[in-house]
Structure formats: C-alpha cells, structure tokens
C-alpha cells in the first residue's frame, strides 16, 4: 500500500519530493529510497568523523568547514531519525485500526 503524506508539517517542496519519490509502484521502491537516504546519512557521518579527526590533528585549514561538515551530518541524522519515527508511527496507527 502506498504511504503518502509522510509528514504533514514538512515544507511544500520537501513534501512534493517525498511524494514524487514514493510512487505507488512497489514497496521495494520505497525500500530503495530509504536505503539511499541511509547511505547518504552514513556518508555525511563519515565526512563529519574525518572532519573531527582533521580538527584534532590541526590539519583543517578553515575551522568553519569542519564545523559545517559536522552540523550537516547532525542535521541529516536528525532528519532520518524523524522520518523513521513517522513511518513507525504511521505503521502503528494502521495496526491499531479496527477492521
């Protein structure tokens, strides 16, 4: 079944992106999307870790670049966790429905 409107409070363009990606084609498509998103979060986390190590070594040329990398990783993680929470909530909501 399709799960539209993942988060009614997301801004319009994010909403459109989410809806465009979650085509009713198959559940597998959504799974791929989630996998891609998780990979990207992982990438950002690795980048942030590299930034932290470079910071410790003093290898960073501009400290603000390291700070930005770490902040982006943090945001990506928060977004992913929230999306996951919403999906779980939606699933539980559906499970609670009396047929």
């Amino acid at each position, binding site marked *: 079944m399709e799960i539209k409107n993942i988060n009614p409070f997301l801004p319009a363009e994010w909403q459109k992106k989410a809806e465009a990606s979650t085509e009713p084609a198959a559940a597998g498509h959504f799974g791929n999307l989630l996998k891609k998103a998780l990979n990207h979060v992982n990438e950002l986390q690795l980048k942030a870790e590299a930034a932290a190590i470079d910071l410790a070594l*003093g290898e960073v040329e501009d*400290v603000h670049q390291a*700070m930005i990398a770490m902040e982006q990783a943090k945001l990506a993680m928060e977004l992913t966790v929230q999306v996951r929470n919403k999906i779980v909530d939606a699933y539980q909501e559906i499970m609670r429905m009396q047929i």
Partner: protein
Amino acid sequence: MKMFQTMRTSASGLAAERLRLDLIASNIANISTTRTESGELYRRKTAVFAAELAKSGAGQGVRVAAIEEQQTDPRWEYDPTHPDANADGYVAYPNINLLQEMTDLITATRAYEANVTVLNAGKSMFLKALEIGRG
C-alpha cells in the same frame, strides 16, 4: 596546525617589529659608543625584512633576512683629548641620527600594534566559527 596560519603570520610580524625595536634601542643606547668590545666603532644596525611565502605562493608573513650594520660615514668631532681621537684629533662617533631612530621607533611600534589587532581579529573569527550549529 594549518588552521592557525593567520595567527602565525601575525606572530611573524610581531617578532620582526620587535627585533627592529630592539635594534633601535641598541642604536640609541650606543649613540656615543666610539669603541665596542671588538674595538671597532659602533655602527647603526638595521633589520632587512623579507616576505615569507609558502611553496604554493601563499603569504605566510615576514622574516628578518639579515641584520645589517650600515657602513655610512661616521660623525666626526674635534676632540684631541679623547682617547679614541685619531692623528688629527678627530673622534669618530657612530652614524646614528636620533631623529631617524625616533621615526623608525614610531613606525615599528605602529606596525607592532597593527599586528596585534590583526591577531585578535583572527582569533575572534575562529571563535565565531565554533558557534556554527550552536542554534
């Protein structure tokens, strides 16, 4: 640490101007030194600055390339009674002009203060960058 390059650059400026101040102090103190420990006349000391560049060409401040002793003519004074007087009764005094030294002193001090200001600005920007993401 690469991220503090700007502070290292300012530090080089501070060090160079500080050295210059020391030389000026030495010149002024020795304005009447007709004979140093080596037996020679004291000569005016100046620092030669050169820009310090990284291999990539990026600016990394300044360094003191050399400390020169100016070989200009000394100041002659007639005083046959002086132990260092020459055959004609003239004494050679160091080629130090007090007015010139004072001018250089002001220049060096201003430059030193400017470098301190730049250093503080760099530090402030670094601290501000640490606030990225702090809400």
